[in-house]
Every structure is written in C-alpha cells, then in structure tokens.
C-alpha cells in the first residue's frame, strides 16, 4: 500500500506561569505556526506546508500539542517552532508562550506511547510541589493507583481456558 509519510512533532506548551490553565485551541496553535512559517520561509514555506499540516491533538491540562506535517517538510516546521513567542488569547490580546519539542514520531501511536512513558517519568516531580502532608499522601495514592496495574481477583470458571 502506498501512503503519504508524515511526521508528528510532539511539543509542550510552556507558559510563564506553571499553575494556570490557558484556553488554547487547535486553531490557535495552527494559526501561530502558520504565521511564523510565513515570516521565516515566506510564500514558499506556506505553499509547501498547507497540504499536509494539521494540529492533531491538544491537551490544555498537560499542555501537550501534536503537529503533523509531511515528512519532507519537517525541517521547515522544526526550524520555525522555536520562533513562536506568544499565542493569542481569543480576546484580542496575547500571552507569552513557547513550544518545546519533545519528540518527533512517524505515527500518532508512536507519539502516544512516548507520551505515556514521559508522563510516568514526570509524575514523581509533582510530589515535591505539594505543600502539606495530607496533599502529599493523596498525590502519592493517585500516582500509585494510576501506575500500578491491578490483577483481577481469581474466580472459578472465569480464568479457565
């Protein structure tokens, strides 16, 4: 089967303040990337870019973005991403923000796998941010619950094959 080869750039949105949640949509990120490519590579860049490019995934809470492009044009996208310095907030203003490239993958699935592993590594650092002991224990419990796979209790008849 012949298919178009794509590259997926997984990036993290980094804001000035860590603790706020910003309202960022796929359209906003798409427009920002497009603007920068136009500034940096001109009409040629935009022309190459428009066919394959889209923002495939965005998560406001973990601040992850996945941008897709054709494999041949990865260099154009990768060189443009560092120049993003703010995103519009939808009310006419803009807030400072930049993208930090984490991973470049060949498929969405590969990126998701990487992301799960990455998040698992980041989890323990959240523990140090907690201020009170109660908060800490709750955090520890939720990390424990999310990372440990529980086995099904053995019942007669169910596990027989």
């Amino acid at each position, binding site marked *: 089967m012949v298919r178009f080869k794509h590259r997926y750039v997984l990036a993290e949105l980094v804001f000035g303040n860590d603790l706020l949640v910003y309202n960022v949509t796929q359209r906003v990120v798409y427009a920002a990337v497009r603007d920068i490519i136009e500034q940096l590579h001109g009409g040629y860049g935009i022309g190459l870019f428009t066919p394959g490019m889209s923002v495939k995934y965005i998560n406001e809470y973990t601040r992850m973005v996945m941008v897709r492009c054709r494999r041949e044009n990865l260099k154009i996208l*990768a*060189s443009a*991403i560092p*120049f993003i310095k703010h995103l519009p907030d939808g009310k006419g203003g803009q807030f400072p*923000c*930049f993208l*930090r*490239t984490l991973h470049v993958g060949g498929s969405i699935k590969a990126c998701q796998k990487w992301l799960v592993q990455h998040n698992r590594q980041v989890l323990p*650092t959240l523990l140090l*941010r907690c201020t009170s002991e109660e908060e800490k224990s709750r955090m520890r419990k939720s990390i424990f619950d999310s990372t440990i796979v529980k086995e099904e209790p053995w019942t007669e008849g169910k596990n027989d094959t």
Partner: protein
Amino acid sequence: MRNSEKNKMARFCDFNVPYSENTENLRQIVEMAIKLGYESVALNCTVTPGTTKGQAVVPPPPKPVELSEATLAPFMVQGKAFQQLTRLTAIIETHEQKYKVNPNNSTITAYDILAVQPLNLKMFEAACKELEVDIISLDMTQKLPFFLRLTPIKRAIARGVHFEIVYAPAIRDSTLRRYVISNATDLMTFCKGKNIVLSSQAEKAIELRGPHDVANLGVLFGMNQAQAKDAVSINCRSALLHAETRGSAVGVISIERIMKQTPGVISVERIPSASTDKRALEKDSGEGQDREDPPGKKPKLVAKKKIK
C-alpha cells in the same frame, strides 16, 4: 528520541545567561533552563576592561543562584546534578584592553570560562591566534564591523577555541533575526559547523528554548543535524575542558577532585598544577570512570596542548 538514548546523550549546556543584579529574574531564567533539560548553565558577566591604571578591571565572579528542592526535582529523579558555572566576557577594542585579559590575573582565573568579544579585525585575529581564551563571541545583531577570514578561524579551531552564536535576539525581533541568520551562516561557511557553541543570552525566562529546538535553530544557521546537536552539548563541554586545561599550570594535566556530593550540587576543587601526589591520582582515576565525559574528548584536547 527514545528514553534510553536520552540517558546516553551528552549533557546540554547553556553558556550565556547574562548575570544581573535582579536576582528574581535571574532565578526565573535558571529555573526555566532546568525545566527545559539543561544540565549546566554559565552566568555571564560582560565587562569592558578599563584602560587607565588602577581601575578595577573585573568584578569577582557571581554567586550561584539558590534553588529550591522542587526545582531540582527532575535531576534528582534521574540521579544527575545541576551545575552552575561563571563566565567572563571581555569586550576588547584596543591593545591595552587585550593585555588586561591575562589568564594569570587571579580575578580572571576565578571564573570558570573566559570569553572575548573583539570589536575590530585586529582584535579578532589576536583572539583567534594568541589570546588564551575559550570562547570568541561576536555581536551578531548588527552588520559585522569586519570581514571574517579563513586563516585566523582555522587557527582558532586548531587551538580548540570555540565561536559563539547567540540565539535569543533572533527570537526577540525580526530585523535582528535577519542579521543573526546572515552572520551565523557567514561564520558557518568558514568553520563548516565545527567548534560552534549555541547559547541563549536570554534576558527573560520566556526567551529560552529547549535544547532540541536550539539544535533545530542550528540547522537553520547552516549546520547539519549532528553538528547542531553537538553545538548545544559536546562543544560546550569541550570549551569547558579547554578552560580547565588553561587553569592548570603546565596545561598538560588537570586534576579534579570531587569533594562532596550533595543532591543537586557538585562542588569541585581544582588543583592548579600537575600534581604528583600518587594517592590523589589513583583516587581520581577511580572516580574518573564514573564521570560521563565524552569518550576521547579530553585526551584529544590535552594532546593539542602538548604539541603547542
């Protein structure tokens, strides 16, 4: 990039965080650098050496920024340490200023890295050929006041001196971006991607970029992928090693003794001359295996020094 590869790779460095009295801002920048995955930063003091006698030439090196445990958490999880260095950048224009940048001066040796920023062709050639410095920095935000030439640059590369490209102005403004890109590609035609250090000179935390993004910027400046990645990791490290060999008396052997290791902080005592204390040597060779130097990098530099 897979996680296993990530651990093998050399540590990322940013050798130009401008030092200012505004400690809050400085702390924010350093914290952002930690968050982005840099493992060492250098606080940079820029000075113009005075020409009159008796004038204080160089301020004492800045103290490292105090960091909380929570910010150092990403390193503690991986079992690594964060390193804060000091760097002096001297802007030189005349011969008198050139002689002030003398590595025998005790205030200058107190800094970890020594850099110069020549303002004219004579000083540029002097910096490339004879000055005992580690990094040559050029102001790329305007048209260079002189034409770069191949011979001095070749000589600088042979001596192990590195050239610096600063990227934060390119992010700040679109006209500055043009100058930076044109000057950087110009420099790249002469040194062909070798001995380049990419660093930030960020005035705000938001102007920093992650190491992989900086490597992508290097691709924009005309390097290939591998060279661009080296420019944020291995080249920085070899510039630092160059500084260390300069600090030793003969320039042949430099010995580090790791005194104590508390989480997040390594304090290193430098022995200034080629010590003959056998016990110290044995102890260090034992510890040296644990350090993650790029293989073959240090002996190569030492060899160069010997030839000279």
